[in-house]
């Protein structure tokens, strides 16, 4: 595959590429993580001025919002956008495109082999500054850095699936792989040696090994929350904020059913429940909400971990969705975000399938 050798570190090289795309007028805006050098505060930003690139930190290992979700509406503005996305963000975006909530038409997607991101608490506590240099060092050696999001540690989909440009950083140097005609077209004239190369497979294999082991551990740890009693215990502390669905790249409904009048109970309901059970949990329906969300979107879960990260009471929502999602998607050999042409399992069917599911 046609690749560009990066002389500097990957962040600098991509920053230069983004500035080049903006100044040459090939794109109107760039979506990337930003970090203000003086304060260290970071966010996801849309930049239109090439001079704004100094604040761009395309590979900052933080996810303040799933960029796939953020990109959703702006991708349909008709403006040409280059977006730097983590593999799960790109997959989340792809799932949204399938739901007609975004478009690849005017988009150049740039992704990288992902080492994972740190939970937002590390940003708030100010530990990020110390953690990032160690992170870069460790990921270059295909080792797992400490303190990542639980789902990142257990993520086996760290190689971007359908990006126009993907970046691989190995101990032998950094490469920019061009996967599509659009990538070739947009990078035309950008300085850098062109070679035929692929991402280092042994590097990927080593990463995969530790990820698979961590995934086994994560799923094991969730076993104790199984069964009705386990779920009651797990979701007992849920405050019902629905933050997990707000930050989810898949949950796109403007008017979530669970926040509609259907779940706005009245006096007779409470009376009836009290008479039947002798007590009532408030807020009601926390387990129903999560089970319902699982039926609506678990097969599309990309395991980005936003839901767990924003949960005010630290419920491991992401782990549960990842674990269950792999099974529900597996029923249809579906991999969320693999291919924008692959239809969502609940939108299609085969006449002969599934056997007797009684």
């Amino acid at each position, binding site marked *: 595959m046609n690749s560009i050798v990066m002389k500097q570190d990957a962040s600098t090289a991509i920053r230069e590429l983004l500035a080049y795309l903006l100044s040459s007028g090939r794109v109107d805006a760039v979506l990337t993580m930003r970090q203000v050098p003086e304060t260290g505060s970071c966010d996801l930003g849309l930049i239109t001025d090439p001079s704004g690139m100094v604040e761009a930190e395309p590979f900052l290992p933080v996810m303040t919002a799933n960029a796939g979700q953020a990109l959703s509406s702006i991708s349909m503005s008709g403006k040409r956008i280059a977006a730097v996305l983590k593999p799960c963000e790109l997959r989340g975006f792809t799932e949204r495109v399938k739901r007609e909530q975004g478009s690849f038409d005017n988009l150049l997607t740039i992704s990288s082999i992902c080492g994972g991101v740190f939970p937002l608490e590390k940003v708030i506590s100010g530990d990020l500054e110390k953690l990032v240099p160690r992170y870069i060092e460790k990921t270059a050696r295909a080792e797992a850095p400490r303190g990542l999001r639980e789902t990142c540690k257990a993520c086996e989909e760290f190689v971007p699936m359908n990006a126009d440009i993907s970046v691989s950083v190995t101990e032998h140097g950094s490469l920019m792989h061009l996967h599509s005609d659009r990538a070739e077209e947009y990078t035309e004239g950008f300085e850098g040696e062109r070679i035929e190369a692929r991402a280092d497979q042994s590097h990927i294999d080593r990463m995969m090994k530790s990820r698979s082991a961590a995934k086994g551990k994560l799923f094991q740890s969730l076993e104790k929350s199984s069964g*009705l009693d386990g779920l009651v215990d797990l979701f007992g502390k849920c405050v019902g904020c629905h933050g997990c669905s707000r930050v989810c790249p898949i949950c796109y409904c403007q008017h979530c059913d669970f926040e509609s009048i259907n779940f706005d109970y009245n006096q007779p309901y409470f009376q009836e429940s009290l008479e039947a059970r002798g*007590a009532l*949990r408030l807020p009601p329906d926390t387990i*129903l909400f999560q*089970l319902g969300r699982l039926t609506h979107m*678990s097969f599309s879960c990309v395991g980005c971990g936003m839901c767990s990260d924003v949960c005010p009471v630290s419920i491991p929502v992401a782990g549960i969705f990842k674990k269950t999602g792999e*099974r529900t998607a597996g029923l249809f050999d579906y991999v969320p975000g693999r291919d924008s042409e692959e239809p969502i399992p609940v939108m299609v069917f085969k006449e002969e399938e599934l056997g007797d*599911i009684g």
Partner: protein
Amino acid sequence: MISDKHDDFTPRITSFLCKWCSYTGADLAGTNRLQYPTSIIPIQVMCSSRVDPVFLIKAFLSGSDGVLMGGCHPGDCHYETGNYHTRRRFAILKEIFDSLGLESDRLKLSWISASEGPKFAQVSNEYTEQIRKMGKNPTRKSVFL
């Protein structure tokens, strides 16, 4: 939790029945004077695919001992493809129950056509017996759902 598994109780089976097939099948069973248990609590729906899996979960968490979903045989949907979608959603729901360690046997999908009154009676009897053996749904008394 209540575990009176051998108690001879009458289960409550919330049944979502398609107007064009299973519900008419239940009617036929009645006009043919076929016996089926009072455990079946029928709810008529316009198509099995009208039923959001959330309805089934709600019935389960509200203490239904079993939840039955009746639709047209594959290929016979009044709206052509509704039941194929139901089948996928139901498979997903069962998988979710299994992965979380919930009793997925308390959910049942059955294809019963409008002419299959005897089949409706048979499914009702067999499913009721199966649920009776499983015992009451622990969600009946579990408070903190």
